[in-house]
């Protein structure tokens, strides 16, 4: 007795807890959250530096310097682009934590059984989110600052503006860092809601992973989503109508676009499962296709959230491409069939830069997709072992994982391209409806959306690549599952 007390008393409890936390942070899946926090912070830092540098150049220009409009527009674009990237990163983190929590159910239940409260458990997981966010944001701040310094050093001579004094290192760079760390924390908190539903009894029973996460009835959130979407769609229509008289319509349409798209994103759990079901049916009725298609709908909320991340990226890229292409068509007609080379080059460059910038969000969404598939495989070990025992060959396992990845990417791209064409057209239409459409100064009226085929092809190719890349790690893990090990209870 006395020996035991001394042994326990001599050991401080703190190192054990820290060790435990260290082990948890090394858990599979956390890396993705660190990565997306780093990418979005670095993106923010670089964009702030780039726009700041551009503004400095403009101020130095004797003709443009007086007008602050361009600087305001650049600042606005920066906020929107970084905002989208941070939002997608937060989605990835919330998903990661909700998946990790699902995998930890047994351990959480055991701690509950011993006497830990659900709130304490959830707070512990949110703290992990804060650590992950802080680490990721710091790495991103460092990497972004280094890249920005290098960029300014290179850009000065390249643009022929040597005498621009611009300090890269500014307190404002801390803004994206703090915001990303904070949103990661919040996302971890949001994603860990499931902890509250874990009962101590689950540690005793032979509870496998919950077979099907019930879609929580979030009627409140869905009502908000539907309201936002409807209001946004009406504003879009109004913007297009006003656009037939004056280009000011674009401002109304812009507000409508933001509202309706926010509605779609919030209502992802309403929009995406039917789309996923439709695409899943197209895979066919054989066993492999069915196993793959059903997996996306096993956790409809998780899959929807992940898919909506990819949808956001694809929608924005398509939107810029379609808007620019439609604008070119109208301007070409207005110019009498030939667009001045200089103007065409400016339009193409702007579209290219914007597509590249929103592409960053698509990359973040891709990281989340890889993570979702990987965690899905890790948590389905028993099931894969059962299927292997019953006669699923390793080739079929590969196909299941590949189809699972394709299921989400194909659905997201189809939805994203449709939305992108709609928004791109609405934007172009509301600007161009009233401008002269030919040398005789007749109004353009309703313009048919012009879809740039090369951009769509690039999106399709990128999707195929993303699908293959996303499937690599999960496939390796899935084919390594031995039926004997997985079925050992």
């Amino acid at each position, binding site marked *: 007795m006395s020996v035991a007390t001394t042994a326990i008393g001599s050991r401080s409890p703190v190192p054990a807890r820290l060790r435990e936390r260290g082990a948890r942070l090394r858990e599979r899946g956390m890396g993705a959250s660190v990565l997306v926090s780093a990418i979005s912070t670095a993106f923010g830092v670089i964009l702030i530096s780039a726009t700041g540098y551009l503004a400095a150049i403009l101020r130095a220009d004797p003709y443009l310097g007086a007008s602050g409009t361009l600087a305001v527009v650049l600042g606005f674009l920066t906020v929107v682009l970084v905002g989208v990237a941070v939002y997608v990163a937060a989605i990835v983190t919330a998903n990661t934590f909700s998946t990790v929590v699902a995998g930890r159910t047994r351990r959480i239940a055991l701690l509950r059984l011993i006497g830990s409260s659900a709130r304490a458990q959830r707070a512990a997981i949110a703290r992990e989110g804060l650590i992950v966010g802080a680490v990721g944001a710091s790495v991103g701040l460092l990497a972004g600052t280094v890249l920005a310094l290098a960029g300014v050093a290179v850009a000065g001579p390249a643009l022929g503006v040597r005498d621009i004094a611009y300090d890269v290192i500014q307190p404002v760079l801390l803004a994206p860092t703090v915001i990303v760390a904070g949103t990661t924390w919040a996302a971890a908190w949001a994603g860990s809601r499931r902890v509250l539903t874990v009962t101590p009894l689950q540690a005793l029973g032979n509870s496998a992973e919950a*077979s*099907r996460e019930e879609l929580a009835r979030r009627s409140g959130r869905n009502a908000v989503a539907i309201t936002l979407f409807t209001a946004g769609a009406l504003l879009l229509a109004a913007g297009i109508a006003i656009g037939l008289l004056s280009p000011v319509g674009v401002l109304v349409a812009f507000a409508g676009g933001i509202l309706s798209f926010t509605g779609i994103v919030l209502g992802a759990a309403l929009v995406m499962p039917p789309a996923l079901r439709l695409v899943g049916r197209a895979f066919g009725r054989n066993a492999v296709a*069915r196993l793959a298609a059903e997996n996306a709908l096993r956790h409809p909320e998780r899959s929807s959230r992940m898919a909506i991340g990819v949808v956001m990226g694809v929608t924005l890229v398509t939107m810029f491409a379609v808007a620019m292409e439609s604008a070119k068509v109208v301007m070409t007609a207005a110019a009498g069939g030939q667009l001045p080379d200089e103007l065409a080059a400016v339009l193409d460059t702007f579209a290219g830069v914007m597509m590249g910038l929103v592409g960053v969000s698509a990359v973040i969404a891709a990281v989340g997709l890889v993570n979702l598939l990987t965690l899905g495989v890790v948590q389905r070990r028993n099931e894969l072992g059962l299927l292997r*025992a019953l*006669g699923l060959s390793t*080739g079929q396992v590969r196909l299941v994982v590949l189809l699972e990845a394709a299921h989400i990417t194909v659905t997201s791209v189809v939805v994203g391209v449709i939305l992108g064409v709609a928004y791109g057209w609405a934007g172009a239409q509301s600007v161009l409806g009233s401008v002269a459409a030919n040398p005789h100064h007749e109004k353009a009226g309703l313009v048919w959306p012009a879809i740039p085929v090369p951009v769509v092809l690039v999106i399709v190719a990128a999707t195929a690549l993303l699908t293959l890349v996303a499937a690599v790690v999960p496939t390796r893990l899935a084919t390594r599952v031995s039926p*004997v090990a997985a079925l*050992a209870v």
Partner: protein
Amino acid sequence: MGLAARVHQVSKSYGAGAGEVRALDGVTVGIRRGEFTAIMGPSGSGKSTLMHIMAGLDAPSAGRAWIGDTEITGLSDLELTILRRRRVGFVFQAFNLVPTLDALGNIMLPFDLDGRRPSALETARIEGLVESLGLATRLRHRPHELSGGQQQRVAIARALATAPDLVFADEPTGNLDSRSSREVLALLRAASVEHGQSIAMVTHDPVAAAHADRVLFLGDGRIVADKPRQSAEEISAYMLAAERGRDVDAEVSA
């Protein structure tokens, strides 16, 4: 020669050097066709390892194994997979069903994985199984909507659907209450008696083993007894005696 599966001089070791653990030590045994065989033994006796090797789930370190007349030692992973799919049925203690498929989908899985539809004969057999297992009203239910006993019956229907050379049952009653256990054991016994299905069941429960035609006892990686049908009391008595013998051995060697 009427054997559904057999192994010859099979050994299996894990690890190497001083840490080497011998799970099986030169076991030679056959599972007779049409019989319900129970494989018993304490934890670590090698009974699960023996089943895994006989079912083509694991490869032996030495020795040979057959399913029917097909030698399975040395087959590739794909060949073994297809062999399991067509000629072996499985009932496990847990994780028996794929959660995303309904009961019918789970029963049809061996055919679906093979990319074929069941023949008229097989369809008739499946319908008969569904009827006799009382699953007719549950076919469209997903596993989480079924009780443990119902889930196990779906697993039995799946295992019997292809009329495999051999059905392996690994602690099939381990997670069930005593009433569901009796039901499951009676169903396995009926499959063997009425349809001549060969079944090998790994268990440590004397009550479960008492339903079998033959009881094999394993200890320390060897077959230590091979007995005809026994009552649960006889099996318990034998196991207790064996346990005492081991204790005595241990004391003597210490």
